[in-house]
């Protein structure tokens, strides 16, 4: 099918202002949007800059705004967009460095602020083997282990747009993954961090995050569970 692809362009070394480049191309409805961007690089303008690696939705490199909504470019097919006009823009709320590449540092900083790692200073089992955990205990945080830190959620969140100090859904998801892990012992510290001004209370349940998550994590549910844990003092 014939489509019109509009791509956000900005070269900090040349351009004062961003612009859109338009490309007309013949594509297969089953093509990924990432494929289209690769066609642009191969056949039209090799200077287009974007991040990508795995090409199947697992590395989290290529989150971007496609027709106004956050997706992984490698996980959305042309036919899913139901349109022959496709507009590709960088994520909103992070500084654009070049073309579709944004500065991810604030995002990772928020991630690191919630202690996203297992903390348990108790002695290991004497036989040196695994700490035990029942399948039920494991299921409690299964969903939030899926996060690939693509930032599609955080950069779709109205609260983050207005204030990038808000830790954002991705950080909360990663805190959730440890708060509800029966092997972890630092839920209290994390909950106190998330109870701060820039923590969970900033979430207005706008739900863009959950809609955007390419891993289909129930983000808003996870945030709600964290809020409940803070209020009840129970995990």
């Amino acid at each position, binding site marked *: 099918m014939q489509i019109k692809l509009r791509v956000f362009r900005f070269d900090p070394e040349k351009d004062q202002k961003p612009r859109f480049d338009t490309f007309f191309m013949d594509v297969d409805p089953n093509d990924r949007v990432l494929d289209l961007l690769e066609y642009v690089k191969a056949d039209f303008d090799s200077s287009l800059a974007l991040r990508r690696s795995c090409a199947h939705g697992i590395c989290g490199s290529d989150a971007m705004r496609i027709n106004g909504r956050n997706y992984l470019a490698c996980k959305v097919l042309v036919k899913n967009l139901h349109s022959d006009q496709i507009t590709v823009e960088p994520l909103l709320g992070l500084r654009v460095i070049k073309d579709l590449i944004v500065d991810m540092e604030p995002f990772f900083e928020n991630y690191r602020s919630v202690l996203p790692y297992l903390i348990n200073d108790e002695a290991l089992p004497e036989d040196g083997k695994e700490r035990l*955990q029942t399948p039920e205990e494991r299921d409690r945080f299964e969903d939030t282990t899926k996060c690939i830190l693509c930032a599609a959620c955080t950069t779709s969140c109205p609260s983050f747009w*207005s204030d990038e100090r808000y830790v954002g859904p991705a950080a909360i998801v990663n805190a959730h993954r440890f708060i509800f892990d029966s092997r972890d012992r630092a839920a*209290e510290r994390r*909950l106190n961090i998330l109870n701060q*001004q820039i923590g969970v*209370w900033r979430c207005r349940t706008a739900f863009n995050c959950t809609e955007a998550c390419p891993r289909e994590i129930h983000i808003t549910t996870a945030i709600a569970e964290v809020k409940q844990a803070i209020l009840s*003092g129970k*995990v």
Partner: protein
Amino acid sequence: MSVTAKEPEKIRIQKNFDQIAWMAMRYSGVLLIPLAFGHMILQDVVVGVHQITTDYAVERMATLGWKLYDIFLLAFAFGHGMNGVRQVFRDYIHNPRSFRIVSSILFVVWLVISVIGAITLLAINPAMGR
């Protein structure tokens, strides 16, 4: 069955304003359904501004039942609303100093208007009707 037999963790959370405000917004909201909806349906729809006169207003506010109703409405609706405004401002104003100034102003506005409203409600008595 829990093979790790984890003690339910005793978690102490520092209470803070945001947490309390979050709860308060929800509980006051629920309360506001009868209060605010009732008031509005009655005054704006059923009675309508064209039927409302000073006498009507005085008479209504002078009745004890309505007086109480209105005081609750004033306290909850305006408190809820002004805290809402504060939260909205906090989204957009990031400088802590600026935000402190703004919330102080909001607090004063809230206080002054609430006091004016309260005085009106408390002071009105049937004798004031013309």
